[in-house]
């Protein structure tokens, strides 16, 4: 009856399993709608996270600066929200008209959760409007806490909404093991389908990535406002806002690789072949491109911090180190971004027994690459530390030994990373994979340990002078743009990796893509699509920023107008 089912599929195909779209084709249309929708969604999920955090800091520290910042974040959200919904609607429309058979399957498996999703989206929008428009009304005492709770709720709804949608797309990647081409959608079971092998890893990965992304977009917004600021006061505010956005983006970004390992491991567990396709198969070169992008991220983030130290009294004493740190970053970047072996000739390939495999031994390279990445993370952390310490003079008696312990922790972590990096070349692949865990653990332990010690060392520290917010050269702001653009592109790239490993399946080994565009494109073609999505997204975001500026001016205008 398999025969029968294929016939049924064929019959269904002829009766319109696929629609067509002019120009870019059905796949291209859905790709753009899904990716742009996702970018906006990431933004509207990421930003509320630190809107509530900054609001809380504002309440606890009684610092209106933070409250203002939080409100500014939220204003961007109001516009971004409609954009998210619009692109989501477009995506739905395209899926139902261009991929009706596939959509029918999904709707039959996930029906009730789709209603819940739509319902929650409304509730979420409502909460957001209350949160934003109620800002100045509930601004003191108990009402303020109530207002803050609204922000918290906003995050709760957003997270649930994302988890639901993740259930759908992870089902496409890793349907529960009992599900085959013959299973009727109704028999899959809603919860069974949602709680599939990659659901939780994707949930966690996206949660973190959204914070990173939100931070970087907010930093870009601040950079734009900084460049167009007219007063020193405005400049100071946006300089600071850019710093906060960047700080959030980079510090959350540092944990992202760990979520990535977890996801990768679950993919391997689910299906070895899928894992291998991702890391060593037709996608292997994707990781080289990823390395280039992440290298840019590290460089831009450090560059921004180093320039920023010029406006901190006392930072001069760290200046001489930066060139060495730059050197280290660049060397690591090169190591990471270089393929281990150039493409072999046909004869070599035949001897290897592989056809299109570009690396002789991908795992062999992992040793060097993991080492490079971990060193880059350590270097960036060091930059943050220098930045933090720049204008402070510790007063605690044990300051000197405290700093020495910190230094020792750095040295130890770097030592562990390098040791296992080199040792990795002398052991079996299976042992080597375990080494990356030690490297990561050493780096994490160093970050946590040093941060804690540093908090105590700098307790009651004397100031060498205030940070001169606003006195930031313009070129630093361009680093923030580069960060935001790179994060956006990276998201598109990873999106391609995640959905591309399904190859010619709508639902892996359950529903085949029998359309004319079933082949998964090579990276060049994918990059064109990614770039197109990024341009569309950023153009819309620029528009939203501009609207945000308009709205603000409209609010501020009455005062001078009243005086005239």
């Amino acid at each position, binding site marked *: *009856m398999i025969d029968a089912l294929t016939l049924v599929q064929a019959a269904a195909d002829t009766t319109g399993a696929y629609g067509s779209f002019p120009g870019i084709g059905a796949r291209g249309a859905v790709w753009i709608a899904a990716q742009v929708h996702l970018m906006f969604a990431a933004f509207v999920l990421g930003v509320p996270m630190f809107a509530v955090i900054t609001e809380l800091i504002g309440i606890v520290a009684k610092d209106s600066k933070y409250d203002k910042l939080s409100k500014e974040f939220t204003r961007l959200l109001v516009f971004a929200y409609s954009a998210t919904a619009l692109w989501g609607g477009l995506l739905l429309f395209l899926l139902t008209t261009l991929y009706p058979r596939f959509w029918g399957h999904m709707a039959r498996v996930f029906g009730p959760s789709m209603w819940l999703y739509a319902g929650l989206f409304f509730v979420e929008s409502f909460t957001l409007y209350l949160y934003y428009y109620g800002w100045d009304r509930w601004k003191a005492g108990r009402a303020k806490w109530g207002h803050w709770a609204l922000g918290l709720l906003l995050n709760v709804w957003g997270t649930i909404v994302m988890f639901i949608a993740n259930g759908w797309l992870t089902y496409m990647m890793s349907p529960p093991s009992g599900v085959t081409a013959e299973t009727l959608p109704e028999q899959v079971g809603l919860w069974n389908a949602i709680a599939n092998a990659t659901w939780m890893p994707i949930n966690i990965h996206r949660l973190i990535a959204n914070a990173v992304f939100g931070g970087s977009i907010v930093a870009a917004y601040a950079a734009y406002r900084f460049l167009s600021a007219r007063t020193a006061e405005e400049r100071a505010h946006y300089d600071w806002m850019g710093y906060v956005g960047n700080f959030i983006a980079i510090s959350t970004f540092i944990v992202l690789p760990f979520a990535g390992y977890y996801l990768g491991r679950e993919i391997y567990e689910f299906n070895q072949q899928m894992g291998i396709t991702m890391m060593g198969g037709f996608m292997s070169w994707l990781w080289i491109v990823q390395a280039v992008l992440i290298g840019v991220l590290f460089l831009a983030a450090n560059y921004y911090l180093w320039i920023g130290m010029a406006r901190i009294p006392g930072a001069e004493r760290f200046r001489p180190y930066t060139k060495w740190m730059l050197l280290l970053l660049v060397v690591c970047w090169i190591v990471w971004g270089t393929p281990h072996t150039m493409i072999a000739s046909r004869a070599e390939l035949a001897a290897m027994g592989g056809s299109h495999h570009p690396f002789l031994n991908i795992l062999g390279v992992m040793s060097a690459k993991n080492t490079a990445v971990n060193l880059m993370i350590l270097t960036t952390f060091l930059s943050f530390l220098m930045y933090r310490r720049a204008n402070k003079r510790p007063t605690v008696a044990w300051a000197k030994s405290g700093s020495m312990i910190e230094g020792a922790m750095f040295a130890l972590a770097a030592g562990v990373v390098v040791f296992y990096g080199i040792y990795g070349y002398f052991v079996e692949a299976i042992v080597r994979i375990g080494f990356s865990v030690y490297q990561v653990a050493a780096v994490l332990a160093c970050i946590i340990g040093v941060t804690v010690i540093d908090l105590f060392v700098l307790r009651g520290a004397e100031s060498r002078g205030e940070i001169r917010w606003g006195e930031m050269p313009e070129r630093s702001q361009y680093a923030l743009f580069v960060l935001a653009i790179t994060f956006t592109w990276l998201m598109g790239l990873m999106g391609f990796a995640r959905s591309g490993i399904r190859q010619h399946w709508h639902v892996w080994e359950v529903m085949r893509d029998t359309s004319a565009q079933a082949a998964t494109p090579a990276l060049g073609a994918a990059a064109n699509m990614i770039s197109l999505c990024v341009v569309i997204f950023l153009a819309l975001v620029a528009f939203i920023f501009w609207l945000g500026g308009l709205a603000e001016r409209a609010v501020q205008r009455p005062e001078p107008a009243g005086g005239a």
Partner: protein
Amino acid sequence: MWRTNLKVALLGLAVIGFYTLIAHIIPQLESEVPEVLTLGADASPEALVEAGERMYNGAGACSACHGLGTRAPNLLTGGGGLGPIGSRCGERVAGTPCKDYLYESMTEPGAYVVAGFENIMPDMRRQLSIDQIWAVIAFLQAQGGEVTVTGADLAQDAAVSSGGSMPVAATPATASTDPQELLAANGCIGCHQLAGSGGAVGPSFDGIGGRMTPAQLRQSILDPGAEVAEGYDQFAGMMPATFGEQFTAAQLEAVVKFLAELR
């Protein structure tokens, strides 16, 4: 201000262009869709081997594991002194000829796991059709051995497989005689509706006992072509004629009885 806008826009385009460029200068690998084989019973061994090689290197994705380091045994070169797969395949399991061993390796990889490796090889029936699998086997046999796969192997399976879903085993899909389970396991519900769910390719089972006698039901299942249901002319020939061979007598009777009682 316009200068700033322009600068930001240019910077954005430059960064995006840079990444796009990088993605273009690396090797361009596409993931292909497995080609549908059009080889028939008269296919020559050479044609089979050639198709198998394309499958092996391309959509079969075998080379992702085989031939790379220590993950899976190398099939094209000597494995532990036994020679390439075509020459070692007959030696692996005593009494199992090469062809059967290879078929088993592809469809039930867990049945015999080569010493020193993990049981990670997937059941290829989920990805390839039976004729694609036979073509790959022909290619593997050609690696140092004699090709004994023939077009007849394809023809034999052509009746039960196409397009690459799970093939029907010659044995019953389930040993159960529970009619509901039989209907589900044999894919009837894929085409016929029962209690509101199922496909709409064939007539609904709901109320079918009121329309047909047990004898008519039995005949429709054993020989679907004999009498085509009214209004289903355009679907005639779609219902598989193989259930007579697949069902045991008890299973057939259980299904007939169940359907006859649906009034």
